[in-house]
């Protein structure tokens, strides 16, 4: 069992999608509990990837490939796991503001947040204020991430936060804003709880905001 799980872990570290799936299938065939494959194989692999990233050995593409390898395996394992065993983690809703179709920065943040154990709901791009606010209410999100890339669209971040206030939801959720033209001053100005210049510090900032 140890050997099979070590192979799963190694495949994630190497960011090999096909091989991860194959090793996971082997583990299941060998009778290992799917939840154990996730915790002792996939997740441990991703922790190593996280460490390598922190140490400067790994870069974003390494992280992305490892996360995708893991997500593919989890999709395969999910139907095999009893509902009660699934641990959701802290819920975050995230999206790119209305009028802005840029997704890659947001996608990097999602990948990092998921790797850190958050349950992330992606609203996609060109998301209206109403959709953001409705998702926060419906999904009972603890964190809201609002992304905007262009100097012409960052204003929308304020509109989302204003609408949260209007609907009486502002106190229920921590709000973090992101995007290349932003600054700490901007975050204060639009009424967010925090800002981060990149995805790694974004994860730290969110944990700090939640007192984790």
């Amino acid at each position: 069992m140890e050997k099979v799980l070590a192979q799963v872990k190694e495949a994630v570290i190497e960011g090999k999608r096909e091989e991860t799936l194959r090793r996971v299938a082997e583990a299941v065939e060998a009778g290992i509990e799917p939840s154990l494959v996730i915790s002792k194989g996939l997740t441990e692999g991703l922790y190593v990837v996280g460490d390598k990233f922190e140490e400067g050995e790994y870069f974003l593409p390494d992280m992305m490939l490892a996360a995708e390898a893991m997500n593919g395996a989890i999709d395969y394992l999910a139907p095999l796991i009893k509902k009660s065993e699934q641990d959701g983690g802290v819920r975050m809703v995230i999206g790119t503001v209305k009028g802005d179709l840029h997704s890659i920065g947001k996608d990097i943040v999602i990948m990092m947040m998921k790797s850190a154990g958050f349950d992330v709901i992606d609203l996609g791009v060109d998301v209206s204020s109403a959709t953001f606010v409705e998702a926060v209410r419906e999904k009972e999100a603890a964190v809201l991430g609002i992304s905007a890339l262009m100097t012409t669209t960052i204003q929308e971040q304020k509109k989302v936060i204003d609408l949260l206030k209007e609907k009486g939801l502002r106190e229920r959720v921590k709000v973090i804003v992101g995007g290349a033209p932003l600054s700490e001053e901007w975050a204060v100005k639009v009424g967010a709880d925090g800002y981060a210049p990149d995805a790694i510090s974004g994860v730290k900032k969110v944990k700090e905001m939640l007192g984790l």
Partner: protein
Amino acid sequence: MIFEPFSQKDLEKIHAATLEILEQAGVIIEGKRAREILLSAGCTEKDGRIYFPSGLVEDALKDPVPLTFYGIDESIVLPLTEAERSYSHNFGSVSVLLDHETDQIREAKVKDMEDFARLSDSLPYLDLVVPSLRATDIPEEIANIGMAVYTMKNTRKPVDIGTASDSWETRYLIEVAATIRGGLDKLKNKPMGTISISPLSPLNFPADIAEAIVDCAGLGLPLTMLPCPTRGLTAPMTLVGGLVQQNAEQLAFLTLAKLVNRSCPLVYTCRLASANMRTGFVGGKDPDLGLSGACVAQVARYYGLPSGVYGMDTGASVPDIQSGYERAINCLPPVLARATMVSGFGLLNGGLLASAEEMVIDNEIYGMLMHRLGRDLEVDDEIIGLEVIKAVMDGGNFLAQEHTRDFMRKGELWQGKLGNALPFEEWRSRGCPDIRAEAKEKVNQLLDAHPGPYLDEKLCRELDLILEKARDERVAR
């Protein structure tokens, strides 16, 4: 002496790969009119994507339309198509600046927008003015229109009209430019600059963008094709792969525009960037920026199109040593490759930050490049000085020769206006002046000496009214 990174065979390979992408990978194009135009011309559609037959693209590339810019003062002329050297312009659309008086980073105001336009107007080595700052003290809804108004009021030079992101705003931008010229037809005959339109990468034209292309090309106004792919994020990691994808984005844009209107002039731009692969930040600290600009200069020339490329770029947030060497490394290749337009005067931190003192320093850098590196060398007997060499060998020295004096007057030696070249003792005795202090002083001198709006009061008032009208339509009171 023109720097050409590619061989003829390379260019043909790049062109063939581009056609293969357009034909086999296709392009996401939304917008009803754009899709109809492309499909009725022979493109095919599958799962929403549009596929371009090679013949259609080749046909659209035929007979490129020549382009010349005319200043707000029409006597200032920039013939882009026959340009013998690279023209320069400043950065565009930045909302934060490094204040040259206080050294603090702060948001841009309308007053700064006017000052930057006047500064651009005053710098002799800056050819084309781009609406630079996006002021935060005018309502967001009309910020782009305000940029055009305040910039065009304060310069005599050719000016870029702006970036089209939706049709309402684009109509206003065109109204501002047409009002200055005295009508849309006059604007078409003597454009002061282009309208820029940016598709998304990879190969994605959302509805607003595709429709803006149809509208603007229909009017026959010159367009800047401005895809902004980032290697490793929204384009292949490899420089050449990024260039080919960008080329496919350009040719998809070009094919659509030409199907709407064959006489629409187009500018091929390179905004291929790279990201920090640990943070995803796109920040200018990249020696490939200049090289990619040189590559695009050559590819655009292969198609007979004028090019616009990055030049003065840096990751630094102050005009420091890093900014200086990164600018030099990135500006030299496109200038040597004779790119038609080189961007970036006054830009810091990969385009997120603006600086007036950097504008003045860039004027000096560009002047040095244009002195000789960016021009063709001439060789003839007089320039060689055959006669003067013989004369001096018969007795005398070069200092007391008419040849020396005449060529000095013609500018044979670079006469810098900025920076230190004093013997160090003298430099020390003058209190060790540094380039930033010098540049800051120069900014104030130039702003004090600027005569103010070039347009007459009546025309300025008309522009204000256009801005007011836009405000009434879009801004809640």
